[in-house]
């Protein structure tokens, strides 16, 4: 393994570590802020001190979680510079804007009003306090919007052109970034999955209180609010998940193929409901891709194209250049081998442009520019030596996708059952202990589901940091791999240590506070 590969692998590992830690806390912030704001709204309307107590109980938990989200988030923003400095220049003109807007529009809002939310109970009017709680929730969702716009742009780069003078991409259409179908789907899918997660968390903790017979009335109240927020969240998450699959099929077909472990596609392609991949399977060989699978006929064609007879290409089809047009027709485009060739031609043209510019040779510059424009769409492929380098980790993407989908379906059922029982069934507290246990067990499951979603999104788009334009290996900083190994270890130790403290504080708080008569 050469130095560059080691550096890239450790830099990816560090980014994955910090991103996954960050995402442990963000969805709970997104969902719990809304749940708390609804609870306070009810209190504002009825002035019932029991609702005030309920609001404050969950608000304290929100605060403990929020601190960890902030701690892990700052690293992510600056890691684009520290570990991916080439990336920061190559597309900083486009990518930096949503990050700055996120700070200006969202972070200040969150930081300002969260202070009022926690310390303002006796210092500001109830109306201003309620507004602050909602503005904290809105600020959290706004920050998610802008970072997801940025992330979506990496998966589907639009609204830009290449500037050979500066050797970077520059923005030419801001609204194309913000309103790209990937961004819209990703925003709703991610934020509303946070509602799903927070709902399960609140119901799980409340179920524990019911089992312990502590503050039963507050627990039931909390389950009702969390149940409605959660079911709205899971329905919207499933709907946008379906939308995401269609968009992925169009703009990242390789990711979709990896999600399904699909090597050779067909018309009327089935979708694997449950399956185990053949670990010996390699791209291009004749082995069966699955050891075991239960598939739904026509499922993938419907999911990807909305047409049971549609063709869905597999990894090998895509490498061979088989593409789908936006209309759903199959065409033979450039194979990945040809793309690599054209990518290298684009590199050569840019090199010639640079030399001609330094010599002041206008004609040579124009010629090089024309050659560059012809092949630029495959610029990123020029960094590869073989088509296989452009294939993501199929097992990780496949299993993450299926875990996410199966758990997503489970949570829809979970919310339906919880809401039906909490409203319809008498003696909900005494007679449904099985459900309380399930609710508690569901807490870790919802985090697994949520993290799996991001693994699909991020592992499935490898090796690209910007789809088609820049692979991870070209985005890197010039630092020794040993430095990244040290910082990876530092972050792993610090984040783990702080996570232990956070879980300990939360469980202690829930345990202690629930023993008081909160109502």
């Amino acid at each position: 393994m050469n130095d560059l590969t080691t550096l890239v692998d450790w830099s990816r590992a560090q980014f994955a570590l910090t991103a996954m830690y960050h995402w442990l806390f963000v969805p709970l912030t997104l969902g719990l802020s809304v749940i708390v704001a609804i609870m306070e709204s009810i209190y504002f309307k009825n002035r019932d001190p029991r609702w005030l107590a309920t609001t404050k109980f969950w608000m304290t938990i929100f605060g403990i979680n929020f601190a960890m989200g902030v701690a892990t988030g700052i690293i992510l923003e600056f890691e684009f510079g520290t570990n991916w400095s080439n990336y920061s220049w190559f597309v900083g003109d486009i990518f930096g804007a949503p990050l700055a807007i996120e700070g200006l529009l969202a972070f200040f809002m969150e930081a300002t009003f969260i202070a009022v939310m926690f310390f303002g109970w006796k210092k500001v009017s109830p109306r201003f306090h309620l507004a602050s709680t909602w503005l904290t929730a809105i600020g959290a969702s706004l920050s998610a919007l802008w970072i997801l716009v940025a992330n979506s742009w990496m998966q589907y780069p639009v609204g830009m052109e290449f500037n050979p003078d500066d050797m970077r991409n520059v923005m030419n259409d801001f609204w194309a970034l913000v309103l790209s179908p990937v961004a819209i789907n990703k925003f709703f899918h991610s934020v509303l999955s946070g509602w799903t997660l927070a709902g399960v968390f609140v119901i799980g903790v409340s179920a524990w209180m019911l089992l312990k017979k502590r503050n039963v009335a507050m627990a039931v109240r909390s389950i009702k609010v969390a149940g409605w927020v959660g079911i709205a969240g899971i329905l919207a998450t499933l709907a946008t998940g379906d939308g995401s699959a269609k968009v992925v099929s169009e703009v990242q077909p390789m990711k979709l193929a990896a999600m399904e472990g699909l090597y050779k596609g067909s018309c009327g392609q089935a979708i694997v409901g449950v399956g185990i991949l053949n670990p010996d399977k390699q791209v291009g060989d004749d082995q069966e891709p699955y050891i075991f699978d239960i598939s739904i006929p026509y499922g993938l064609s419907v999911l990807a194209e909305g047409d049971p007879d549609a063709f869905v290409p597999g990894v090998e089809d895509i490498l061979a250049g088989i593409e789908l047009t936006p209309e759903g027709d199959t065409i033979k485009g450039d194979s990945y081998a040809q793309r690599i060739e054209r990518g290298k031609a684009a590199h050569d043209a840019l090199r010639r442009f640079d030399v001609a510019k330094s010599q002041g040779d206008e004609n040579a510059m124009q010629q090089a520019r024309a050659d560059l424009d012809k092949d630029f769409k495959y610029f990123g492929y020029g960094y590869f030596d073989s088509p296989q380098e452009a294939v993501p980790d199929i097992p990780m993407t496949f299993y993450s996708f299926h875990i996410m989908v199966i758990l997503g379906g489970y949570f829809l059922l979970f919310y339906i059952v919880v809401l039906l029982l909490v409203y319809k069934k008498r003696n909900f507290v005494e007679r449904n202990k099985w459900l309380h246990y399930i609710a508690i067990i569901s807490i870790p499951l919802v985090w697994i589901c949520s993290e799996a979603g991001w693994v699909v999104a991020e592992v499935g788009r490898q090796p690209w940091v910007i789809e088609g334009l820049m692979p991870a290996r070209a985005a890197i900083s010039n630092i020794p791999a040993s430095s990244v190994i040290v910082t990876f270890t530092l972050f792993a130790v610090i984040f783990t240590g702080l996570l232990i403290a956070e879980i300990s504080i939360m469980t202690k708080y829930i345990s202690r506070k629930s023993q008081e008569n909160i109502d």
Partner: protein
Amino acid sequence: METYELLQSYWWLLISILGAALVFLLFVQGGQTMLLGARNDLQRSMMVNSLGRKWELSFTTLVVFGGAFFASFPLFYSVSFGGAYWLWILILLGFVLQAVSYEFRKKSGNVYGTRTFDTFLCINGVLGCILLGVAVGTFFFGAEFTLHKGNLLDTGAPAIASWSSTHGLEAIVCWKNLLLGVAVLFLARMQAAMYFINTIDDINNYKVQRKAVLVNGGVFVLLFVTFLAVLLTADGYQVTVIDGKETFEAVPYKYLQNFVDMWWALAVLLIGVALVLYAYVTTIFRDHFRCGIWYSGIGTALVVMSLFWVAGFNGTPYYPSLLDPASSLTIGNSSSSPFTLTVMSWVTVIIPFVVAYIAYAWYSLNREPITPDEMSSDDHKY
């Protein structure tokens, strides 16, 4: 001035304002360095809770400062963060520790104990102030990097910027950078003491903090005067752009010359210094003077802005390369495109609104000072 240059200057101005806000808000970090030395738990609690209502603001300002720099001058983000790796990582680690410490320090079950989290706050206070000062010091005294954008096409080693093998540690041990860093630390401590006087209603606290203003302010003034002397006698580069090609020429007393050429920057510097000195002297000599933080804060902001201006305006590379002058970063060669700067400039229309709600929330929360009684109430506190 062409529109593009105007946009670049506007964004450098905004960066200077954000930098000024950040240095002012570093009083939070300065205050954190004073917690372990508090006389008793009550005094420490009042100090923590006074700072705790503002820590998210200083933290967020740092994040926005970074984001705005990325959006407006992405080449700096690329070169500095990827090169001075250890300098920035140490700064970030301190802020990671800060982010949890307020919330966790007094919570039961926090595993490591209150003192550990107070120590984390102290670490963030010291590292944050000194190392951010060091980072700004490199704007004047240079950094050890080279820049070759053509490296992007080298598939074996594609990084466009190379740094000395110490990756930022050399900037930390440079005495000129450290001088600014330590000056920032004592400025932050002086302002923290003024902030405590302003927000805590307790006579014992007042006496302690007044003495802290005297000592920390005195050290700061000495360090800052030394820094100014070093800066005004320092050499720098003058960049000239002819037909799109930049040439860098070493110039003696470059920053002194900048102050002479840009009289308005000098005026802002002097007004800022006067305000800080007024706050310092008045807090010491006038009994129960509680508004020092505002005079000093505004003064600090003006001084920081003027320093950013002489660092980047008047044909000055704001990030001089010590290894290859031609690699130096200027406002002109490191900025985003005209389109992006225009889009971002439209977004800045919202800034007055943001400032207004921050000011209103600040006023609402600080209207009543913190008292010893409040520390024993059931209200949310750190």
